[in-house]
C-alpha cells in the first residue's frame, strides 16, 4: 500500500473512520443531536476528501488493490451518494426523533450503507462488488426496519431482505459460473475466447448476474415486492433506497458493461431490451392504479430505470461519451427529483403516527401549504419530463442517445411510457389543486431544516432545468477525464 493509495481511498477511509468515531461517541453520550452532527461531519469531510483524492487520480482512473478503480465517474457518483446521505440524515432527525426511542444507530447504518455504495460504484472485481453490495443491503435491512415498533417497516424489511438476498445469491452464482468459465474475477479480464467450450457456463453466469442486477434495480419482471418495500419503509429510508442503492448499482453497471462488453452477446442484449421495455410499460401502467403516493413513486422509479437502460443499451451503437454523459445526467436528475419527492412525503408525516402517504392526504395541499405543493408540482413535472425541470434535460438526453444509437423500438416504448406517465403525475398535481375538503386540517408545524432541504432540492430541479449548462459542463469534463 503506497501513500497515494491511501489518498485515493481517503474518502472511504474518512467515512468508515467517521462510523467508528460515531460509534464511540454514541457509546459515551447518547444524544440524538450529537449523532446527527457527527454524521453530517463525516459526510462532509468525506466529500471534501474527494478533492484530495482527485489530485492523485490519473486519466482513466486509479486502480486500488486490483479490487477498486476510482475515476472521475466514481467521484461523481460518490458525491451524489454523499448528497443523498446528507439529505437523508437531515430528514431522519425530526422523523425519528418523534417516534423512535433510540435513534443513534440509524446514523451508523446510514454511514456504512453509504460506504457500501461507494465500494459498489468503484468495484472492478467480483469480491469488491459483492462485498459492497452486501454492506449496502445489510445496512438497508436494518434501516428499513428501524422504527421496529410499527408493522409496515418490519414487513417491508422482511420482504426487502428476501428479495435482496435472492438477488445476491443469483449474482454470486453468476460470478461463480463466470469464474469457472474464465478463471478470473476481475472485470477487465473477463472475456471468453471464441473456441472455449465453456460458453454455456459463461452465458448462464452473465445472465444470472444480469438477473441479480435487475432485481437490485427492481426492473420488470423482477419488481414484485418493490412497491411493498417502498410503501412500508419509512419515507426517509425509501428515498435513500430509491436513490443511493440504485445509483450504486447503476455505477457498477457502467463499469461492468464497459469492461466486459457483455451487451455484445445477442442473447444478453435482447434480454435487457425486453427488461427495459417491460419496465417502461408495466411500471407506468401499474403506477396508474395506485392511490398511495409511495407506491406510485415506486412504480414510477421502475419506469425511470427502464428509461435509463435505453442509454445503457445503445452503448455499442452511439458514441460512448454521449452514453456516459446521458447516464450521469439522468442519475443526477433522478437523485434530486426522488430525494425531493420522498422528502415531501416525509415532511408531511413528521408528526403523524403513520406515514402520510395516501393520495387523498394531499388534496388541496396547494391551498394549505403552497411552498410544499409547488415543490411537489415541480417534482411531478420533472418525473414526467416536462421542460422547466431537470427531468426534461435528462429525458432529452435519453432521447438523444436513443436517436444516435438508432434504437427506435426503445424510443417508441419511451414515448408510450411517458404518455401513460403524464396521467398519474397530472393526477397528483390535480389532487393538490382540488378544493380543500371540509375535514382536512392544516398541516402541523414542520421542522425548519427539512423544509430548507426540500426547498433547496426543489430549486435545484427548476434552476438546473432552466439553466443546465453548469451541470452539463461538469459531467462532460468528467466523461472526458475518465477515458470511457
Amino acid at each position, binding site marked *: 500500500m503506497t501513500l497515494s493509495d491511501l489518498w485515493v481511498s481517503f474518502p472511504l477511509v474518512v467515512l468508515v473512520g467517521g462510523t467508528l468515531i460515531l460509534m464511540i461517541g454514541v457509546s459515551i453520550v447518547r444524544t440524538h443531536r450529537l449523532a446527527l452532527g457527527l454524521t453530517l461531519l463525516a459526510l462532509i469531510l468525506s466529500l471534501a476528501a474527494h478533492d484530495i483524492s482527485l489530485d492523485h487520480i490519473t486519466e482513466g482512473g486509479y486502480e486500488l488493490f486490483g479490487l477498486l478503480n476510482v475515476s472521475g465517474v466514481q467521484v461523481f457518483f460518490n458525491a451524489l451518494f454523499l448528497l443523498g446521505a446528507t439529505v437523508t440524515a437531515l430528514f431522519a432527525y425530526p422523523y425519528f426523533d418523534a417516534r423512535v426511542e433510540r435513534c443513534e444507530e440509524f446514523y451508523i447504518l446510514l454511514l456504512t450503507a453509504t460506504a457500501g455504495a461507494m465500494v459498489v460504484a468503484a468495484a472492478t472485481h467480483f469480491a469488491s462488488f459483492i462485498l459492497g453490495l452486501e454492506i449496502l443491503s445489510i445496512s438497508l435491512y436494518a434501516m428499513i426496519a428501524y422504527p421496529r415498533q410499527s408493522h409496515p417497516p418490519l414487513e417491508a424489511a422482511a420482504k426487502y431482505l428476501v428479495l435482496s438476498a435472492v438477488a445476491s445469491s443469483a449474482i454470486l452464482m453468476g460470478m461463480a459460473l463466470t469464474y469457472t468459465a474464465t478463471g478470473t474475477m476481475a472485470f477487465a479480464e473477463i472475456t471468453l475466447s471464441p473456441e472455449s467450450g465453456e460458453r454455456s457456463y459463461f452465458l448462464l453466469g452473465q445472465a444470472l448476474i444480469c438477473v441479480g442486477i435487475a432485481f437490485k434495480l427492481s426492473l420488470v419482471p423482477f419488481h414484485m415486492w418493490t412497491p411493498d418495500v417502498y410503501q412500508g419503509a419509512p419515507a426517509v429510508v425509501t428515498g435513500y433506497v430509491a436513490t443511493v442503492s440504485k445509483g450504486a448499482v447503476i455505477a457498477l453497471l457502467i463499469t461492468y458493461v464497459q469492461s466486459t462488453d457483455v451487451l455484445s452477446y445477442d442473447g444478453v442484449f435482447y434480454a435487457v431490451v425486453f427488461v427495459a421495455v417491460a419496465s417502461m410499460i408495466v411500471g407506468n401502467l401499474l403506477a396508474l392504479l395506485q392511490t398511495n403516493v409511495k407506491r406510485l413513486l415506486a412504480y414510477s422509479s421502475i419506469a425511470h430505470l427502464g428509461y435509463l437502460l435505453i442509454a445503457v443499451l445503445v452503448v455499442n451503437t452511439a458514441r460512448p461519451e454521449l452514453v456516459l454523459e446521458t447516464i450521469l445526467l439522468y442519475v443526477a436528475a433522478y437523485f434530486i427529483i426522488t430525494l425531493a419527492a420522498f422528502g415531501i412525503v416525509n415532511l408531511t408525516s413528521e408528526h403523524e403516527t403513520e406515514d402520510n402517504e395516501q393520495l387523498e392526504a394531499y388534496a388541496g395541499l396547494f391551498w394549505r401549504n403552497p411552498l410544499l405543493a409547488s415543490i411537489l408540482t415541480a417534482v411531478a413535472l420533472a418525473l414526467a419530463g416536462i*421542460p*422547466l425541470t431537470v427531468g426534461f434535460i435528462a429525458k432529452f438526453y435519453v432521447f438523444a442517445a436513443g436517436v444516435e444509437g438508432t434504437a427506435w423500438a426503445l424510443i417508441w416504448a419511451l414515448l408510450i411510457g*411517458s*404518455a401513460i406517465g403524464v396521467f398519474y403525475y*397530472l393526477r397528483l*398535481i*390535480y389532487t393538490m389543486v382540488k378544493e380543500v375538503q371540509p375535514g382536512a386540517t392544516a398541516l402541523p408545524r414542520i421542522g425548519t431544516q427539512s423544509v430548507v432541504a426540500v426547498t433547496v432540492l426543489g430549486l435545484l430541479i427548476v434552476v438546473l432545468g432552466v439553466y443546465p449548462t453548469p451541470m452539463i459542463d461538469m459531467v462532460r469534463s468528467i466523461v472526458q477525464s475518465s477515458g470511457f
Partner: protein
Amino acid sequence: MTILYLILFLLGAGLVACLVERTNANAPRWISLFAFIIATIWTGAIWLGGADPETGFYVTGELSWIPALGINVLLKVDGLSLVLIGLTTILGVIAVVSSWSEINVSRGFFQFNILWVMAGVIGVFCAYDLFLFFFFWEVMLIPMYFLIAIWGHEDRSYAAMKFFLFTQVSGLLMLVAIIALVWINYANTGVITFSYDELLNVELSGTVGSLLMLGFFIAFITKLPSVPVHTWLPDAHTQAPTAGSVILAGILLKTGGYGLIRFTVPLFEEASRDFAFVAMLLGVISILYGGYMAYSQSDFKRLVAYSSIAHMGFILVGVYAFNELGMQGAIVTMIAHGFSTAALFMMAGSLQERLHTREMSQMGGLWVKAPRMGAMTMFFVIASVGMPGLGNFIGEFLVLLGAFKVNVPLTVLATVGIVVAAVYGLSLMQRSFQGTPNAQVATMQDFGFREMSVYAIMIVALVWIGIYPQHVLDLAQPTLDALGIAL
C-alpha cells in the same frame, strides 16, 4: 434582446401578481392588466421601429444557453411573428378584463398563469432555436393546465388532463423529430446545433424526411387542431374559465398554424409538398366535420369550440395550398379568428355568469333584456360566419382562392363549409337571443362600460383587417418571401 426582456417582463409580472395577493386581493388583476397594456405598447413600438432592411427582422436577440449541445436563446421577430405577438398582447388585455369579476379564488395565481401562458406563447412565436422552441411549446402547457384544472367548470379535471395529454404526447413526437433532424445534421457536418437557420440546409432522403415531417406535423395539427386529433378541444374550451377559453381559442391554436408555416413547411419542403393533398384533405374534413358538429350542439361554448375546428381547417388548407394567396389567407384567418372567437367565448362567459348555464335551451329572447349583448353577439357571429368587410371573410376568401389554383374539388367542399358556418352561426343567434324570453332571464343585466370597451377593441380590429387587410399582408409578406418557397 428587447424581445427577451418583454418575455421576462411578463414572467416577472406574473410572479409579482402571485406574491402580491396576500397583501391585496384586487392588486393582481390590475398588475396583470397593466402588464399586458405595457406589452401591447411595447409591441407597437417594435412595429413602429421598423424592420432591419437587410435581414427583415424587427428585433433579434442571442444569448448563450447550453453551448455543449449548440443550444442558444435565439429570438428573432419578423413580420409574421410581430403580428402574432401583437395579437397575443391584445388578447392578454382582453382575457384579463373578461375575467375581471369571474375569478374569486386565488386571483394572484390565476393572473400568474395567464401571464406565464402569454409569455410562453410569445416565446414560441419568436424562437429560432428548435430546442428553445420546444421548451416554450411545452412550458405554456403547464399554466394552461392550471387555468383549466383550477378555475374550470364541472368536468375540469378530465378536460385539463385530455388537453395536456394530447399536446404533451404529440409534442414528444416533435421532440424526437427535432433530435433526429439535429443528429442527421451532425452526421453530415459534424456540428451539433439546434439553430433553425442551420437546420434549414439539412438534406433529407425521402422516407426520413417524411417521417420527421410527420413528427412536426402531428404536433402542430394537434394544437391547431385538425381531425382526427381534435377531440381535446371541445372539452378543454367548454370547461375552461372564460379567460382560458379566450387564450386557448385566440392564441394557443395559432401556435399550431404558426408552427406549420414556420417549421414544417420550410424544414421539410419536399416531404410537405408530397403530403399536401392529405393535409388539405384533413383541413376540408375538419371544416365540414367542425361545422356539422357545431350545428348539433346545444351548449353555447361547445358550439363555438366546434366552430373553431372548422375555422382552423381553413388554415390547414391555406398553408398546404403552397401558394402566396393560401398562406396569406391562413395568416389573416389566424388573426381574425383570434378576435372573433375570443369575443364569442367571452359572450359565453358573460352569459354563464348571468344565467349559470351554457345550455341554449335555457336561453332565448335575451335581446329584449340585453340589447347590447345581443348586438355584440350578432356582430361577432356574422364576423365569424365570414361576412364581407370583416377580417374572417378576407382570410377565408384568400384561402379559397389559393386552394382553387391547386385543387378544385376540395375547394368546393371547403366553400360548402362556409355555408354550414352561416347555418350554425345564425342558429346560435336565434336560439339564444331571439324567440320568447325564458322566465329566469328576467333579471339579466346588460353589458357595462368594461365589457363594451373590450368588445370595441375587437370590433375595431376586425373591421380594420376586413377593410384594409394590407397591413397584415404587408407584415407577413417578407416572411413568406424569406421562406424561399416558390409560392
